[in-house]
């Protein structure tokens, strides 16, 4: 996030007070943040836009019942993470699309694991994202989703371990452990990349 959105700048508190300006400023300032967040999680550009819109709409609708109990951005990322999980579930329950190149026969996977695999981005999409993303983004894309989320929230969004734990609904110790493994794996991947590049050359 590019700024703090707490106390008098809390968009939902302001909205409830009849002032839409902080919310509008939040939308304009943080659209790109959420867009990048969803893109790094594995959403296509269209999906990411839909998800960002969904997050802002959910926030807006929460204004009447919102009670600030922490930093606003932690709350916003909790909404974003829930939107992402909902999206994943919808994709997992939807029939597989042959056009994604994963299953040309169109047969529907019956096992939950297979369905989850089916909901993941296809190789073509991953390759496309690697081209689009920079060196770190590409390496981050190779981490598991759990590690990726912890790294994203902790390193990029600079949320505390406690906030991450609340967002992901996991113990703080798990956050600490995942963060450590995520950083170690990312470093390994980034160190490995120049060697692979030299070998290919």
């Amino acid at each position: 996030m590019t700024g703090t959105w707490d106390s008098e700048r809390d968009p939902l508190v302001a909205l409830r007070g009849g002032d839409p300006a902080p919310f509008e400023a939040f939308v304009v300032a943080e659209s790109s943040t959420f867009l990048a967040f969803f893109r790094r999680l594995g959403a296509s550009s269209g999906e990411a836009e839909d998800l960002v819109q969904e997050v802002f709409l959910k926030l807006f609708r929460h204004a009447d019942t919102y009670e600030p109990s922490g930093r606003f951005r932690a709350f916003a990322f909790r909404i974003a993470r829930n939107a992402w999980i909902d999206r994943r579930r919808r994709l997992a329950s939807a029939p597989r699309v042959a056009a994604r190149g994963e299953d040309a026969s169109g047969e529907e996977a019956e096992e939950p694991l297979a369905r989850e695999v089916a909901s993941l981005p296809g190789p073509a999409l991953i390759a496309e994202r690697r081209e689009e993303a920079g060196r770190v983004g590409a390496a981050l894309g190779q981490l598991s989703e759990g590690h990726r989320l912890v790294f994203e929230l902790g390193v990029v969004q600079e949320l505390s371990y406690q906030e991450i734990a609340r967002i992901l609904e996991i113990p703080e110790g798990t956050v600490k452990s995942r963060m450590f493994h995520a950083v170690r794996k990312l470093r390994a991947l980034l160190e490995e990349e120049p060697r692979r590049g030299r070998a290919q050359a």
Partner: protein
Amino acid sequence: MSEHDPKWDDEALLAWLLDEASRAGHPRAELERDARRAARLAEVEAFLTDCREELRAESREPEPESLRELERRVLRRTTREDVSWRGDLRLVGGFLRTRLRSSVLLRVVAASLLVHLAALPVLAYFGWIAPEPTPRIAFELPTGREGELPYREVEPDAAQLPVEAPGEGLSEEAALDSLSTDGEAERLWREHLKRHGLVDLHGFSGGPRVFEAWASELGLVLYCETLLDRREASASVGRGRHEPQLEFALDHLRSWLSRSSAAGADGALDVLAASAWLRAREAGAGAADAELSARCRSWLAPRLAPGELFLRGAAWRAAFERAR
């Protein structure tokens, strides 16, 4: 990381760098007292900073136009939502667009609906506005020679006629009604008229109007004739079921003759009436001449001769036809 203090392993150092709560009570100077730990800390911190910067730089360069459009879309649906009917329409339109974009089946259904709606005015035009086609009615005239009946006349076989007691199943009122409303009677006298060639003989071919002016009287006369015919035909098996009708018909004929004689009427129809009366008298049917008034009898007398002549002529013609 620190080999001397297991408390500050890599995981703890990372937490110290990333988590504010982990930093509490442990100033940087404390950690950097150990040179190797300080170097490790600086290395990890630099790595995290590099990653953060690169990733944030990526997120700062999405396609600007699509991002602006996304922001506008969000604001339109939140703080700048149009609550007028235009806004409602836009909302419904947006919803429909999204649904149509995501479902082929829905697109097919929508296209079909459009086709049907487009066809509706055309159907309405043909159903309500366009002139109805004029029905074509054609009459088929019977072929054959003029004056020839379009059917074969079959004389009733006496042996097949039912034998019934006189007046059985017939009230007086019903019999009287039959004279005016009985469709069969009307058909019979019309047949009779043609059969005896009356149309030509008496010049009744003036048209239906002349004919209809006489219809009730002529009908009565011919009805009597028909009943007499049937009486003759059924003579071998006894008195038929038409006997009561004949009685009533002759009663009416008598009263008509009385009226005609009182009025001094004189015409072709009176001759026919006289012939029917004469025939009934000869056949022994109905009331006797004595029941007529003197004036009526005197009026009837000069008409009986031509009536008899007509009767004989008609009988001869009928016999000839049968023989032929």
